[in-house]
């Protein structure tokens, strides 16, 4: 007999014996032929062992379900299992005392109560919970302990789905989602008034019935079961997703913890993003993330414009898009409301669920919400945001009103009549002008494509200030205000590396004017912190814009740093100023005549100092910016070192330098990503992110890791496209385009694609030249034009096309002459200064 057949027979006989009663077994064996005798004996031996094997390899899961079926708990009889999770199982049951036909849900925990103390506490809590009577809270009907010492809770049976599923399924609008949420908030608020904290609010505990009624489950049960005591334990089935930082740390749990969880549920309800997804970590790292990482604004999380999704590609398959909610709806009030509810520090959240709910109602009614800390600026922002077109029209009318008033004031002052009225009007104009120059301008600057409107705003604003004052005023505050206006004009006209109109010379004149006025204000009020801060800023801006004209004036930064250090000593508590001080040190180092090594040493020192500030101000974008910049500077320096090594045929040194560059570049990118998460709307951050991605692409190209290079290159390209699309008037993006093309060119060269490289160089040379003609005072434009023409020249030479090469040589000679004239020395176009 074959093995297969023998096995088959063994199974058959075993089954037959197993089905038969013990008495009948012997006769069955007797019937089996001699030929199969050994098999029969084997089957019999197995059957004997079967009893002994007991529950060998059999698991509790199955046993548990069986044991509960039809089981009696209190006055209820279990009819079926509804579901089970890490904490236990839920069963449907009916009342079996014949009184009336009531269907209920029974939740049985899988955590045993093994001390009388725990049992006593359970009973006390049960009484408290049973008192909660609210239409949106699932009634607790009974509770007790099973024979296995497992606590169970008998609750009203609800036919519903989790709130987030309900909203997604019915494609609810933002308003409808908020109304659902208010039902939930009302229930929690009611419970808080009864001194019951929920402790485990999450979408799965908030069900919505088919007719849209919200029902909260498991009120206070978390406390009874003490599940929050150790959520950090790995392997604990309860995930801390919606738990507040203080819950995770094991601190005292208060109503503020529920406010936090409500905020997180609202966050998910409006954005469709689960906490794990938001933090971009898995559940094992989640506890740490909840305590230390600030979440982005919901409007940012929902639009997920770039990056975050890319970082966690594993999550891309999720079907959690929220088609009926648009980021626009969340921007502003709802962002503020949610972020206020989920602040890490419980004291800084809403004082009560009621306040939280009031803000939502205010939002729904179109009233002002309380969630914004700076209410004055906020109202301005609210006005500006409502509609950009409307804003420019509104501004035009403000401007008209102001000019009329100005004329009146000016005449009044000159005539020296009705001084009092004049003074009042004077203050009004001043206030209006400052609103325009500061609040409106700053809000509008956050929009892409706003460059021209900004220029008009500050120039007009300054006009009004000028009309009520003169440059030789002896009012330090007024001088300061005018100086700020001049500085902003200077910035919008031609500040390097920010969206500007490319008018460098006018920009410089305005920055100089700003410094001049502030120096006078400084003499009048040397201890005025505001004047000192503005003076520092204006010095820094002047130095920066002069750099655009290749005029390096490190002494301006030294002056700024010196004044700032004293201001810090006068008022050491201001973290913002200290952060800005770091930034100035970066700029000072940038311009210093130190050698490469000493310079890198400085940057490393600034990084070290900056990292000390991070715990004090984790969301301070200036500190993050400084860290990003210093890492970027070191990365750049190492990248250039690598190029020098390569040019001198020291391949190994080059690779080592580039690898260091990569390391710092990645750190820089990381900080840039954090910045953009904190302030997603700011065009500057986007531009910085572009630079970080491109630098990384560049060094990876040099390292011949072309696949990685390509992915960062494409990221950079995507960002640049967004920048260009958002703000076509911004001339800076053409220069960025050049840098991107340079990298494309280098990638083509590394990949050995000569033809492609040639076509890139040739089209780039044209773009650069055209730009240079339009912006002849821009040094970078000159360098780019030279760079691409030189590459083209080299390629012609290599391809043995002497005529084309000669034509380009003439062009290059002219460019070199120009660079000699501008920089006082001939700057090579080799890309060292650019790449």
């Amino acid at each position, binding site marked *: 007999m074959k*093995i297969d057949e023998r*096995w088959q027979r063994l*199974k058959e006989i*075993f*089954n037959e014996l*197993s089905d038969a009663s013990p008495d009948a077994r012997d006769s069955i064996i007797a019937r089996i032929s001699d030929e199969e005798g050994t098999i029969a004996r084997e089957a019999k*031996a*197995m*059957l004997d*062992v*079967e009893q*002994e*094997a*007991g*529950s*060998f*390899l*059999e*698991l*509790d*899961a*199955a*046993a*548990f*379900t069986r*044991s509960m079926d039809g089981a009696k708990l209190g006055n209820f009889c279990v009819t079926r299992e509804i579901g089970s*999770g*890490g904490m236990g199982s839920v069963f449907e049951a009916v009342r079996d005392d014949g009184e009336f036909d009531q269907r209920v849900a029974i939740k049985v925990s899988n955590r045993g109560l093994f001390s009388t103390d725990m049992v006593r506490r359970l009973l006390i809590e049960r009484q408290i919970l049973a008192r909660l009577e609210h239409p949106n809270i699932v009634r607790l009907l009974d509770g007790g302990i099973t024979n*296995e010492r497992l606590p169970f809770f008998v609750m009203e049976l609800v036919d519903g789905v989790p709130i987030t599923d309900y909203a997604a399924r019915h494609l609810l609008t933002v308003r409808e989602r908020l109304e659902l949420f208010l039902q939930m908030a009302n229930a929690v608020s009611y419970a808080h008034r009864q001194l019951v904290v929920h402790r485990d609010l999450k979408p799965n505990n908030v069900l919505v019935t088919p007719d849209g009624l919200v029902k909260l489950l498991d009120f206070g049960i978390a406390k009874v079961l003490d599940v929050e005591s150790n959520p950090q334990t*790995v*392997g604990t*089935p309860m*995930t801390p997703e919606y738990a507040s930082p203080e819950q995770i740390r094991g601190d005292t749990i208060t109503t503020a913890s529920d406010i936090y969880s409500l905020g997180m549920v609202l966050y998910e309800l409006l954005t469709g993003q*689960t906490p*794990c*997804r938001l933090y971009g970590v*898995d*559940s*094992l790292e989640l506890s740490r993330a909840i305590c230390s990482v600030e979440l982005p604004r919901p409007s940012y999380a929902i639009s997920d414009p770039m990056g975050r999704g890319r970082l966690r590609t*594993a*999550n891309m*398959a*999720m*079907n959690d898009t929220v088609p009926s909610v648009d980021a626009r709806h969340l921007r502003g009030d709802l962002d503020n409301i949610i972020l206020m509810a989920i602040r890490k520090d419980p004291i800084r959240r809403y004082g009560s669920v009621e306040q939280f709910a009031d803000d939502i109602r205010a939002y729904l009614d179109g009233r002002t919400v309380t969630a914004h800390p700076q209410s004055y600026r906020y109202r301005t922002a609210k006005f500006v945001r409502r509609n950009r077109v409307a804003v420019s029209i509104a501004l035009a009318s403000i401007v008209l009103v102001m000019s009329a008033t100005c004329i009146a004031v000016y005449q009044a002052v000159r005539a020296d009549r009705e001084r009092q009225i004049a003074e009042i009007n004077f203050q009004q104009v001043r206030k209006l002008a400052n609103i325009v120059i500061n609040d409106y301008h700053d809000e509008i600057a956050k929009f892409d494509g706003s460059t021209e409107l900004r220029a008009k705003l500050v120039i007009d604003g300054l006009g009004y200030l000028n009309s009520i004052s003169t440059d030789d005023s002896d009012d330090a505050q007024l001088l300061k205000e005018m100086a700020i206006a001049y500085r902003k004009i200077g910035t919008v006209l031609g500040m390097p590396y920010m969206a500007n109109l490319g008018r460098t010379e006018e920009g410089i004149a305005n920055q100089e004017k700003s410094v001049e006025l502030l120096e006078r204000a400084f003499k009048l009020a040397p201890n005025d912190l505001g004047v000192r801060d503005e003076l520092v800023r204006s010095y820094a801006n002047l130095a920066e814009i002069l750099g655009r004209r290749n005029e390096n004036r490190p002494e301006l930064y030294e002056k700024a740093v010196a004044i700032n250090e004293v201001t810090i000593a006068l008022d050491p508590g201001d973290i913002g100023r200290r952060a800005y001080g770091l930034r100035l040190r970066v700029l000072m180092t940038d311009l210093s005549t130190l050698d490469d090594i000493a310079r890198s040493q400085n940057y490393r020192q600034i990084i070290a100092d900056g990292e000390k500030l991070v715990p004090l101000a984790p969301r301070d974008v200036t500190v993050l910016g400084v860290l990003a910049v210093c890492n970027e500077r070191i990365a750049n320096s190492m990248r250039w070192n690598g190029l020098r090594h390569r040019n001198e045929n020291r391949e190994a040194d080059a690779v080592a330098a580039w690898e260091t560059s990569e390391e710092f570049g990645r750190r820089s990118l990381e900080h840039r990503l954090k910045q953009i998460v904190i302030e997603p709307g700011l065009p500057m951050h986007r531009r910085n992110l572009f630079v970080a991605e491109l630098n990384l692409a560049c060094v990876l190209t040099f390292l011949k890791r072309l696949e990685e290079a390509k992915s960062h290159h494409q990221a950079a390209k995507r960002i640049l496209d967004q920048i260009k699309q958002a703000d076509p008037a911004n001339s800076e993006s053409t220069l960025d385009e050049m840098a991107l093309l340079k990298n494309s060119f280098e990638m083509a060269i590394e990949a050995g694609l000569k033809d492609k490289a040639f076509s890139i160089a040739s089209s780039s040379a044209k773009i650069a030249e055209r730009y240079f003609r339009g912006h002849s005072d821009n040094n970078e434009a000159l360098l780019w034009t030279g760079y691409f023409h030189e590459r083209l020249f080299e390629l012609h030479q290599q391809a043995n096309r002497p005529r084309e090469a000669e034509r380009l040589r003439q062009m290059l000679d002219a460019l070199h002459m120009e660079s000699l004239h501008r920089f006082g020395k001939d700057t090579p176009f080799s890309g060292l200064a650019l790449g």
Partner: protein
Amino acid sequence: MVVAVADGSELNALMAEAYAELRRLASFHLRSERRAHTLRPTELVHETYLRLLKQHSIDAECRVHFLSLASTIMRRVLVDHARRKKRAKRGSGVQPVTLDRILTETRFGSEPEIVDILALEEALNALSLNDPDQARIVEMHFFGGLTFEEVAQVQAVSLRTVMREWKFARTWLYQHMKEGNHENR
């Protein structure tokens, strides 16, 4: 019976992730001696499933398929661990905690039972030479925590058949392991 298993590559990617997750969870539990006595492999499998469920849209019908695949992984993870432990034991001469014996609570509230993972592995391998289907059933139930109804669904056979096969398989394994023990002594 129709079971919609998403597209194959998707499931593969999912399994790769499941494997990493399981290994991580298991090694955590196995490393911590204090916890060793409460390790329940099937809990790990289910927990892994729940974790992945949160991150992916897994079709509810895929669940049993997922669990059945995860049970294979769980088996491998535990066996690997037991082997490493055994090698370490040989090397150091120190009396180790019996981590190579996985404790399973077989019935609710009753006395737990200790299963020697390496012995079970050997027996299971022997069983699958004779009857791969039976070995799979054991694997799915014991390592993956699938109920017999779920096993029947995966195997596309009746519950009665699964119960018959199970009874035979587990008796055979028990006998085989018992005999193995005698041989060792």
